[in-house]
């Protein structure tokens, strides 16, 4: 009886010792802060039910922690041989969303599961990174070739396009970030990125300026409004209102913040979506520069640890997976906080670990689990 138990406990010890505790600590602080900020910002959101959102967020933490543990234990390399199966599953799930999805905040990205809504595209972002990493490894000797780059771009374009059509521009961009991360670490030539960047710039100009000016609508009006609100300071439309309320919340927080009770912008609902995409503004108002800069610094530490794991990965496949996840975290953090402070367009990307929402929480925690698993095996050869 005692021997197996000893064996088990030593396995658990080894597992615990292999974790990146700094990264876990950072994630833990961000999660706790998220629940507190959700509580602050939604006290008056639903009359008679002040705890609705924070309770749900705490409930979401259960599958999120489970996902983290599962992926920390699971060896991601076991998925390496099946990129096409995974891609097929991802595309299938996204098509199911089109068939039976429900619309939340304008995007048909959710499917209902009991009292919760599931957003398959959130889980899909990890799947896509795994698919891209596996397919890049298959072509690692031809990584310099245009054929490889185009093939991988085409693979990513499928799900990204479906998501863009939901429409969820923000999520589609996260997929693109994952693609760039994988390609970049895999060693795709700089020239390819330069050409890609040029192509992207042309597309943006066409979609937002040239085509609309000749009367062809590529993006929806509200999307254009949201995308450009940060450029004109935000006047005269809903996106502008959102942005100016966000900046007011952050700026009025001052150096040390107004505290939970003094955060009028948040508490009295002047700032819409303050528990989801604009949660950073709540942090800025409640805790001021000290709190907001701390959150940015925590993400900096998270990225440092993620990059360290990328560098230390035992296999190149894992390295690419870690790099892709790292790129996505970096992109989400920069775009979300950037739009909160008025430096980036409003694209509807939640702040990882902090914003309210189950799917992105579970997916991001799973991604951390993947990183931890890679970290654990860094010396396992």
């Amino acid at each position, binding site marked *: 009886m005692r021997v197996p138990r000893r064996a088990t406990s030593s396995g658990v010890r080894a597992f615990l010792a292999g974790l990146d505790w700094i990264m876990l600590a950072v994630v833990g602080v961000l999660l706790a802060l998220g629940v507190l900020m959700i509580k602050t910002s939604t006290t008056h959101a639903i009359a008679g039910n002040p705890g609705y959102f924070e309770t749900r967020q705490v409930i979401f933490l259960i599958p999120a922690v489970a996902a983290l543990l599962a992926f920390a234990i699971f060896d991601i390399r076991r998925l390496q041989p099946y990129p096409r199966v995974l891609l097929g599953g991802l595309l299938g799930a996204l098509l199911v969303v089109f068939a039976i999805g429900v619309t939340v905040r304008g995007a048909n990205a959710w499917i209902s599961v009991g009292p919760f809504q599931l957003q398959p595209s959130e889980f899909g972002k990890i799947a896509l990174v795994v698919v891209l990493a596996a397919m890049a490894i298959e072509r690692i000797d031809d990584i310099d070739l245009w054929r490889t780059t185009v093939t991988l771009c085409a693979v990513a374009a499928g799900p990204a396009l479906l998501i863009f059509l939901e429409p969820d521009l923000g999520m589609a961009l996260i997929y693109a970030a994952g693609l760039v991360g994988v390609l970049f670490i895999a060693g795709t030539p700089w020239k390819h990125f330069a050409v890609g960047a040029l192509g992207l710039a042309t597309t943006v100009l066409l979609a937002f300026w040239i085509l609309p000016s000749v009367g062809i609508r590529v993006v929806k009006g509200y999307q254009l409004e949201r995308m450009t609100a940060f450029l004109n300071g935000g006047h005269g439309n809903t996106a502008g209102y959102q942005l100016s309320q966000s900046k007011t919340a952050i*700026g009025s927080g001052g*150096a040390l913040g107004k505290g939970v009770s003094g955060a009028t912008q948040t508490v009295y609902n002047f700032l819409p979506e303050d528990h989801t995409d604009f949660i950073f503004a709540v942090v800025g108002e409640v805790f001021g520069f000290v709190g907001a*800069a701390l959150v940015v610094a925590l993400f900096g530490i998270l990225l*440092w640890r993620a990059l360290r794991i990328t*560098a*230390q990965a*035992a296999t190149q496949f894992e390295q690419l997976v870690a790099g892709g996840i790292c790129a996505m975290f970096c992109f989400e953090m*920069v775009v979300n906080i950037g739009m909160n402070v008025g430096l980036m367009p409003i694209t509807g990307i939640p702040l990882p670990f902090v914003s309210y929402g189950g799917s992105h929480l579970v997916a991001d925690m799973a991604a951390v689990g993947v990183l931890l698993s890679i970290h654990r095996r860094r010396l396992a050869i």
Partner: protein
Amino acid sequence: MSSRLVSPAGGPGGPGRRRQRPLNPRTAFRIAVIGGVALGAVCILVVRLWFMQVIDAQGYAQVASSNAIRTVVVPAPRGFITDRSGRVVLADDVPSVNVVAFPLELAGARRLTEMRMLAPLLHTSATHLMRTMARGQTASPYEPVVLAENISATQRAVISERIRQFPGVELENAYRRNYPLKTTAAHILGYTGLITQAEYKSYLAKGYSGTEQVGQAGLEAQYEQYLRGVLGQTQVEVDASGDPVGTAPLSSTPPVQGDTLQLSIDMPTQLALEAELRQRVLSIGRATGAAGVALDPKTGQILAMASYPTYEPNAFVQHSPHNTRLVTQYETSKTFTLLNRAINSYPPGSTFKPVTALSALQLGRLSANELIDGPSEIKLSGTVFTNFQKENNGLIKLPVALEVSSDTYFYQVGYRFWQLHQSVAGLTNANTGLQQQTMAERFGFGSTTGLDLPGEDPGRVPTPKWKAINFGNTHTYLLDHWIPGDNINMAVGQGNLLATPLQMAVAYAAIANGGNVVTPTLGKTVTNPSGGVVRQLSGVTPPRPLGINSAFLGVVRQGMFLVAQGGQGTASGVFSPVAAAGGPVVAGKTGTAQSGTKSQADHSWFVGFAPFNNPKIVVAIIIEHGGVGAIGAAPAVCGTIAAYGPTKFNPHLCGSAGAVKSN
């Protein structure tokens, strides 16, 4: 596949430790690039946060608090206006509901959408509401703009039911001015209204919020500083939909009701005067209006002041389509409904003769016992002047000349003033030797009396200078030069002389009270809501001595006695029956003033006082184009005196003028 990637080469780990897979330099560089990008992004965000939260924090904080703190104005009732007893309320307040909007909360396209929805509920157009909003926002963006005042109960119910559809719009409790006696004393009271754009700055400097009702005419405007209530203010925290959060206001100042203005108006006298004026104008078909003033000759306190036609002041403060039409009608009326005729100037006609007489007596140009011929016509300085109805009064002394109102007698007195003028100025048009004018000015003619009411007409005492200025461009000697006819016409209250009924009352008060020119006042006291006297308004300016020998005053008073009581008195038919029945003895003077336009009837004047031995009331009345003084104005004066407590008598004792022999 993974095994292929395993490198046998040693890593940085020490001996005995499992070694890490070595990093190829290209990958290491690329990871470093991502790290650099991430570090750069972190730095940019922190710098941005520093600028927003440390350097520009003040500005954002201000925006945040203007978001969340709303100043709710608590209305303050305006001070009441009462009669002299303090028991009759002439102006008070009734609660009303206004529709207001906060311009900053109603920006962009939402404003037009809401105004389009509101406009039909408020019986107006969205364009009008948008313009009101824009004006209010320019004036003071943080203050609510009044979109509609005093809405009906139905409107109130409909809007409050749908108020959720109108974020930024609120129903606000306020007070509306009310004039319970409607047209009574309208020209004295005036009315209130919203601060106009032109007045905005000066009111703002006095601490008004800009949305208050202020006095726009009459005593409401004159005593605005006392009547004004001071708005209370409550600062509350509100959420994004404008609903108050929490229960305790952040700060609160209670509203303060304005002070009560107590007038010297005696209600029975005021009502009698108004009734008399109305009745005279309605019964004399050609009359276009009437005005009257009754005052206490000792104190100058005005007991009654009225003008006809009159108006309904509530039309200005109670908004309805009907009232809007009514106000337009008043403002465009051909009979100048809004004009207070009691302080508007007219030729005084024969009512000016006592002033002429006293001037001549004081200047030594006339003696009380001097017998002067009063023929049917007389030629003076080459011009023939005729007596009223070509009557021949024979050789008469001053009292009788007043009794019968002999024009030819007074023409000769006027000619003596011409001689006086000529002895100084010669035949030049010099503005010297103006004793007739100087004496008239001593009685208060030619300048405002100092009445506490806006819009007083100073009247006119003509001088050579005045003629030169006003008729200089005609280059007609008779018009632009001072000629004998000017003194002669002025002596009988004609020519270019103009006086207001109020000036006549003040001049007669000086004759009646023994030579003191009083300053007439409508306001008596200002009392605060708890009853304490804040300020005394009447008797503040001491009377000015007339500087005329009291014996001369006695002679003229004797003449005025004969006018109303003597056998030949022009108004004795009206007043002698009163004295005969034991009522007060009235003295006074009739006037039948040519109005300039020959096609219209003369103005009918009477100015009198009572009782003769101890005057307590002076009444001056003019019936515009009312004809002969004794017929139109004298009975109205009689009826007014009858209503005043100290001289009270049965108004039916007032007789009729009988056969009119004189003016």
